């Protein structure tokens, strides 16, 4: 637990978080590993966890009928995977697959949701951090949609 606490406290996502809140996070956290090629989460499944990637690379994929999955983004060391646990209907919207061997810290979203409901200061601190990630990824997606390298631009 002590090790997890240190890792969580030092992670950029939790930078500046009150130490009491960090302890609450630790009580919802565990170390996990995924072999290359395995699915960490699948679209439509209940979303009750999120991950802090410590090693390896994860592909965020969209399922497309009659064709191969489309990788829309990759996430790597230091990044956070999964926010569908935070908002209803608490279901994953994408697949996430380990491209290579992945080591991560899994945080129990269901447990954290309850704690956030009980303690709105914690809820605000968590939501603010997730909103920042969402903003960065939305901007990157917008730029991706512009297809800036295409000839017809």
């Amino acid at each position, binding site marked *: 637990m002590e090790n997890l606490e240190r890792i969580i406290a030092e992670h950029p996502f939790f930078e500046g978080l009150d130490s009491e809140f960090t302890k609450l996070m630790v009580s919802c956290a565990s170390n996990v590993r995924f072999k290359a090629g395995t699915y960490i989460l699948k679209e439509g499944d209940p979303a009750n966890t999120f991950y802090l990637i410590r090693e390896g*690379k994860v*592909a965020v994929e969209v399922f497309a009928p009659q064709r*191969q*999955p*489309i*990788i*829309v*983004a*990759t996430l*790597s*060391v*230091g*990044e956070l995977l999964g926010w569908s646990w935070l908002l209803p209907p608490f279901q994953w919207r994408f697949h996430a697959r380990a*491209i*290579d061997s992945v080591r991560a810290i899994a945080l129990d979203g269901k447990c954290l949701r309850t704690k956030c409901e009980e303690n709105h200061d914690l809820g605000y601190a968590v939501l603010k951090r997730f909103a920042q990630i969402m903003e960065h990824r939305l*901007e*990157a997606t917008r*730029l*991706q949609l*512009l*297809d*800036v*390298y*295409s*000839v017809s*631009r």
Partner: protein
Amino acid sequence: MTVTPQIEVDPMLMHPYVVREVAKETPDTFTLTIEPGNGEGSSSFVPGQFSMLWVFGVGELPISISGDPAKHNRLVYTVRSVGQATHALVSQPVGNSVGVRGPLGTGWPAKAARGKDVIIVAGGIGLAPLRPLVYHVLANRKEYGRLVILYGARSPRELLYRKELASWARNRETQLLVTVDYGGLAWRGHVGVVTTLFKYARLQPAHSVAMVCGPEIMMRFVTRELEMHGLRRDDIYLSMERNMKCAVGVCGHCQYGPYFICKDGPVFRYEQIRPLLEKYEL
């Protein structure tokens, strides 16, 4: 520091060159190697400069030099075949003649970057005018700090110089990060726009010079990211592109606010052109 024009040759004088090789890089992009038709050495150039290439009977095109500045017996260009003239250029058989004016315009501030880390950010074919700078830094490794290359392309099959990318990544004190906007299942690298690579880059902003080339909209986002990471505007350089005709600042085709890209650019200090980057339809 202002980027100064590097013109040493008569910019209106066309020299005959002979096509030695046309190599396919991607489905629509080719690298053309030409040698002086008179058997003498080619004009020396500064990384970032361009030439006007004349395809006889078709027209003249401004193309950035993408070869090694230390190799004086040839000129190398990477060309995307998107129109009649570029198609004609990359379809030239080996042994055919093309006309060359230049090298022209300003280059990357290789001298000013000595002693500092060099950050290269390229998008799509924007890597072509930056490749001579990579060659230069790698050939003069002790004169520079770390070399960080961030390169984004549309898809894996549209990545330029794939073999060289792999060899650059193996160099001492070099960090190469490559991403594509759309990756297939076989692609094991990053997927996402080039700006998403910054979080993996090991930067020392106070001791770095950044040189950026790619679509203008990409460069706008990249400059913002560089500033957010602490780079000073004076340490950021961009290569601009407009339709050039005369290449000597007379015809006005490439006018960009108070500048002519052909004469005052294509490489500009970011601070110099920042207000223009924010103007619509310029």
